[in-house]
Each structure stands twice: as C-alpha cells, then as structure tokens.
C-alpha cells in the first residue's frame, strides 16, 4: 500500500502539472511557443499535402495497446494525431484509414474519424470501415494490416502506438510500396526495430509531441513545455539522490 504522504505528493504533482498546462495554454495563446525542428514532422506535413493533391490515402496504425493497459497513452497520442490528420485531409476524397490491434482502440478510431467527418461538413456519408480491427494477436494484427498497405492506394503510413517486433513487417511492407513512413512507439523493442527499418523515426517521448507539431491545439503545445519542466525536476531528483547516496544519507 502506498504511504499517504507519497500519494499526496504524486497527486499534487499531477494537479500542478495540469494547472500549469492550462495556465500556459491561456497565457501563451497570443505568442505560441516554438519548438526545435524535427525533420520527421516536416516530412509528414509534405506527405499530407501530397496525399490531398493526388487523392491517395494516409494509413495510421495505432498499435495494440489496450485501453485498460498501461500502454494506452501511446494509443491516445495516436488517436489525437488521427483526429488532426483526418481534419488536415478533409478536403481529400479519401479519408485516412486507421488500423488497430485492440478492439476498444478500433472503436475509438471510428469515433475519432466520425467526429472529424462531422466537423469537416462534407456531404458524403461516413464510412465506418475506415477504422478497423485487423487482428487480436501481435502478428495477426500486422498480417491483417499488410493488404491495406498494398491494395488501398496508401501514400504515407504513420505508425503511432504500442507495438512489438511485429512492427518490422509493417515497415517492410511500407518500404516495398515506396511510401513515406513515420513511426514511433513507447516500447523499447519496437523502437530498436524501427531504428533499423523505418524511414523516419521518433524516439521516446517524441511520440507524445505529435499533436503539438501537427498544431492540434494550445494544450498540446503547453503540455510539451510542462513535460520539459518535469524532465528538469527528474534530473534534479536524480542528482540529489546521487549526492545523498554518496554522502551516506540514503
């Protein structure tokens, strides 16, 4: 059982972080923060533009992080990117197609695409099969997503979520089709595989920055600043722990 004081410290940290995110989003509304350039996002913007122009589709793979599992944050980051991508490509005839290896995630991807469809005010009917469950085990998920990459006029594939080694099959298929690939995962094994096989890779927490770089809203940008502050806090805590250990206090 967690001691009460530790729980309170954690809760205060979370509440202060939330407050800081809200405060920064309001205060810096007129002067939005600028972040370092990440080439992968610049290339993604180009790929989105090309997809709209030539009528091809974007594929977003959300991985297989279950909603009730600790890996769900990467899936939520993927859904947030999906919402933004669907808005950016709303002028195109072909909406993005999202694949997931978890049923709940597939349902949320449909809901996200439906929300984007309603917001875009297009007159065509919404196609619920644009958000798909392709398999429930890691390799069946990858195997189910492979035909989409080859048969559905996909020009760019974005892999954002929790994956395992099976992600190598998806990037291999992307490479064979000659499409642009941007990939990010919270799993270390997937990151190692993506380093070798993906055209553009986001490492570690860059996965969670996709919303800020795709201009998804002020809270996405302020959350990146708060993330930096928290990183400094962790660094100070690590150094303090190191000094206290050396001094024999810990």
């Amino acid at each position, binding site marked *: *059982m*967690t001691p*009460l004081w530790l*729980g*309170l410290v954690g*809760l205060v940290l979370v509440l202060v*972080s*939330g407050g800081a*995110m*809200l405060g920064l989003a309001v205060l810096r509304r007129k002067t939005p923060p600028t972040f370092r350039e990440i080439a992968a996002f610049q290339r993604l913007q180009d790929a989105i533009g090309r997809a709209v122009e030539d009528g091809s589709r974007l594929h977003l793979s959300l991985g297989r992080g279950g*909603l009730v599992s600790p890996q769900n*944050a*990467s899936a*939520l*980051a993927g859904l*947030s990117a999906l*919402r933004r991508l669907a808005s950016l490509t709303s002028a195109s005839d072909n909406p993005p197609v999202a694949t997931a290896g*978890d*049923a*709940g995630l*597939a*349902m949320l991807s*449909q809901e*996200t695409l439906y*929300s984007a469809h*309603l917001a875009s005010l297009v007159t065509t009917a919404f196609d*619920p*099969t644009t*958000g*798909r*469950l392709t398999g429930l085990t890691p*390799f069946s998920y990858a195997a*189910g997503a492979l*035909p989409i990459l080859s*048969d559905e006029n996909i020009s760019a594939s974005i892999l954002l979520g929790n994956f395992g*080694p*099976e992600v*190598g*099959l998806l*990037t*291999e298929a992307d*490479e064979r089709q000659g499409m642009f690939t941007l990939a990010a995962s*919270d799993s270390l094994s997937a990151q190692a*595989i993506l*380093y*070798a*096989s993906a*055209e553009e890779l986001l490492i*570690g*927490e860059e*996965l*969670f*920055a996709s*919303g800020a770089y795709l201009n998804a809203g002020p*809270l996405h940008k302020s*959350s*990146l600043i708060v*993330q930096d502050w928290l*990183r400094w806090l*962790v660094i100070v805590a690590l150094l303090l722990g190191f000094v206290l250990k050396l001094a024999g206090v810990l």
Partner: protein
Amino acid sequence: MKLRGLLSTAFAIAFGLIVLLGYFLEFQPFYGLRLIFVEWAVILAGFAVLVGLGNLVTVHIKKIRAREKGGFYGLLLIFSLLMTFLAGLAWGPEHPNMVLLFRTVQFPVEASLMALLTVSLAYASVRMLRRRLNLFSVVFLGTVLVILLGTASLPLLGDVPFVGDWVRPFVSQVIAGAGARGILIGVALGTLTTGLRVLLGADRPYGGK
C-alpha cells in the same frame, strides 16, 4: 449532437478524476470506486472485442461484395472465424480440441511470421546503412553484432571469450540499461501529459467536435 459531446466529455472527466484520486489516495470511497470503475472498463473492453469482430467481418464482406483483390482470403477468414467462434462456444477455450486448434494453426502461422521478420530485419539493417549512413547507424549495427557474438556460440569455436563474459553484459546492462531508463522516463512524462490532456478535455477520443 452538441449535448452528446458535452455529456461524454463531462462523464469522461468525472470518471477519470475519480480513478486518478483512487490511485493516489488509497482509502474509501476513492479506492473502492476506482476498483469498480476499472472492473466496468474491463467488462466493456471484453464486449468491445465482439464489436471489433463485427467490424472485421463487415470489412471483409464489403471486400467480397465489391469483388476486390483478396476477396477469397476474406471469405476464408470469415469461415475460419465463424467455425472457431462456434467451436469455442461449444467446447470452451480450455477444451483439448481448442488447444489443439491453437497449437496446430495459430502458433505455426505466427512462428512463420516471426521467422520472416528475422530475414526482414537482417535486410533492413543493411538498408539502414544505405539510407542513413552516420555514426549512430554504425554504432547501432556494431552493438547488434557484439551482442549477437556474445550471446550465440560460434560453430567450432563455441563461446567467444571476453565478448560473452564482459563486453555483452557491460553493453546490455550498463550502457543500454541507462539509455533505456532515460527513454522510459521520457515516455512516462509523455504518458502523464497525454492523460492530463484527456482529463482536461483537450483530447476527446470518445467523440465530440
């Protein structure tokens, strides 16, 4: 539509806050409510599997009707899915026949894909040097080779001394371990801010404009 969006956002924030409080303050009523809500979420996730299977079948029926490429495989998938589903309902997942079905169909297919992945990755490693020839790529490949040399026994030579005893443990436990912890701390911070965005209603994956 607007009301639906407002209601779903209000419910998501309220339930999220209660579960969050239940994690940090492990006493009643928060702790009990957290357990109940997480239990509900697990039940809903189980039901979502059935809905997801419906989605899978719909996609393939659409493919078969439109006589798209790979329609036959779609038919095969629906047939296998229905047969396995019915067999599972009749026998239950622990029945020897169901275990046999898993061992003789699902397991070999996934193992074959894993084997295919090994070849793909070897090819991808070579391709990486062509696409991104820099110091990091060379270090990456060098580390892979050192770890492989230190892990597997070579024909005729057996275990490689020094590499297996000293270099591999140092690289995997000290250098890679430190890097992995750094990456995981970053992921944890990203997870926190992503969760907060959902709690603040900025990200609404459950719908609403």
